[in-house]
């Protein structure tokens, strides 16, 4: 993240490159239950991000030494498709995707009632088909919907959203150029019912005040996204009831 650049990210009217206001999210579209082989699935579009999440299990955890006799383990796998970025991405796990897989697994483990399935594993596959900044938030949000769609017992539907700093101003949900040429990026995942933090990372520099401001903004964004998530699940299943009545 380069702090000095010639790119103007906020114009004189206070609008961003894509015409958004500082506290405006990109367009989000969520669809639940799109894959019939998976127990639960979700397709999500968040600005230029296109993410597919699928949930398999609970099933017996293999290899056997990974089993926990008291609770289920959650294995999330974040993967970027080779064609998801401008230059071809070398396929397969790299340092970045291993890290994201780990933090997402831990975030999901917090809200899934894992003690209901001892010795089992719940596998979440997150495929990034098209990337445009904020894929980990999009991935986690999609994973939350897919888990609910799979009928897995959980305390809440996790949701994530990022805030950041561009041209010295704190803004919500960074786009591609803003992420590349901005000053800081702060992805946050919360449990929207309790406000509990599931994931918090930061790239770049923020002062304490800026951090608080960005964090509050990100949480606000999370609640908006959460409503879209809930609507997506309700749409899929409530209409099924309405049709026959």
């Amino acid at each position: 993240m380069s702090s000095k650049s010639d790119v103007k990210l906020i114009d004189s009217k206070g609008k961003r490159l894509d015409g958004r206001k500082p506290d405006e999210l990109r367009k989000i579209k969520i669809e639940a239950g799109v894959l019939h082989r998976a127990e639960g699935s979700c397709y999500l579009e968040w600005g230029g991000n296109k993410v597919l999440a699928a949930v398999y299990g609970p099933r017996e955890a293999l290899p056997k030494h990974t089993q926990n006799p008291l609770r289920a383990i959650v294995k999330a796998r974040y993967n970027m498709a080779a064609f998801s970025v401008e230059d071809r991405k070398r396929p397969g796990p790299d340092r970045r995707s291993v890290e994201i897989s780990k933090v997402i697994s831990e975030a999901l483990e917090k809200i899934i009632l894992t003690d209901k399935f001892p010795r089992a594993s719940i596998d979440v596959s997150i495929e990034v088909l098209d990337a445009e900044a904020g894929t980990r938030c999009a991935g986690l949000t999609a994973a939350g919907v897919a888990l609910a769609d799979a009928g897995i017992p959980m305390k809440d539907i996790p949701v994530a959203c990022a805030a950041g700093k561009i041209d010295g101003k704190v803004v919500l949900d960074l786009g591609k150029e803003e992420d590349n040429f901005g000053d800081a990026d702060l992805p946050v995942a919360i449990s929207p019912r309790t406000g509990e933090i599931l994931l918090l990372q930061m790239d770049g520099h923020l002062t304490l005040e800026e951090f608080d401001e960005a964090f509050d903004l990100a949480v606000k964004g999370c609640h908006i996204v959460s409503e879209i998530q809930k609507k997506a699940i309700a749409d899929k299943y409530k209409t099924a009831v309405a049709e026959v009545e």
Partner: protein
Amino acid sequence: MSEEKREVVIPSQLLGDTKEYEQGQGTFVENGKIYSEILGVLNKSESKDKKKTYINVRPLKGRYDPVEGDFVIGIVEEALQSGWLVDINAPYPALLHVNEVPWEIEFGETEKYLNHGDSIMAKILQVDVTKKIQVTLNDRNLYKIKGGQIIDVEPSKVPRIIGKKGSMIALLKKYTRCRIFVGQNGRIWIDGDNEGIEKVLETIKKIENEALSYGLTNRIEAFLKKDAKDVR
């Protein structure tokens, strides 16, 4: 069942207060409030003395949760030295021990009786705390399945396919003249002539799609009657 409209709830949805209601299945309590923990259908049931009302959420989707005494259809995964591993659509494979089959089996000759890919009708003998499952073939009408076909449905829809006191399944049998066995784990075995099987598949699909509506049995009967002229 109540006359209210069936409501679909999603995880973390607030369902009520512990002062007013009792916590039932598919829910959890936090700070005196009852929340749903799964995607499912809301159901309020009264206890026998009508003093308490329980809030339950019946799952819409998800794996089969094994319960002792359930009749299930299993597919043998592997023959072991003194038993078999059987897939019953639960999170874990179930063990079928040689003592739990009606045949006399010499040690190490399990493969002669059941092998990978064979299907059986079984009863769940035991589920322990760590969810180790044991099944048995030592009960009435349990055997290795020969012929017919097996289909998979959502385990949560099984009660609708069976119907109240078996009313739905009786209808299916009456109008299609097929032999049908519904396993609690969401596997259904059907045997009969091709026409009948096709009819059953079509009907089950219809039941699955409309599982949440009322008066389903009557509608299904009308559906079956429509082109079944030779009912015996």
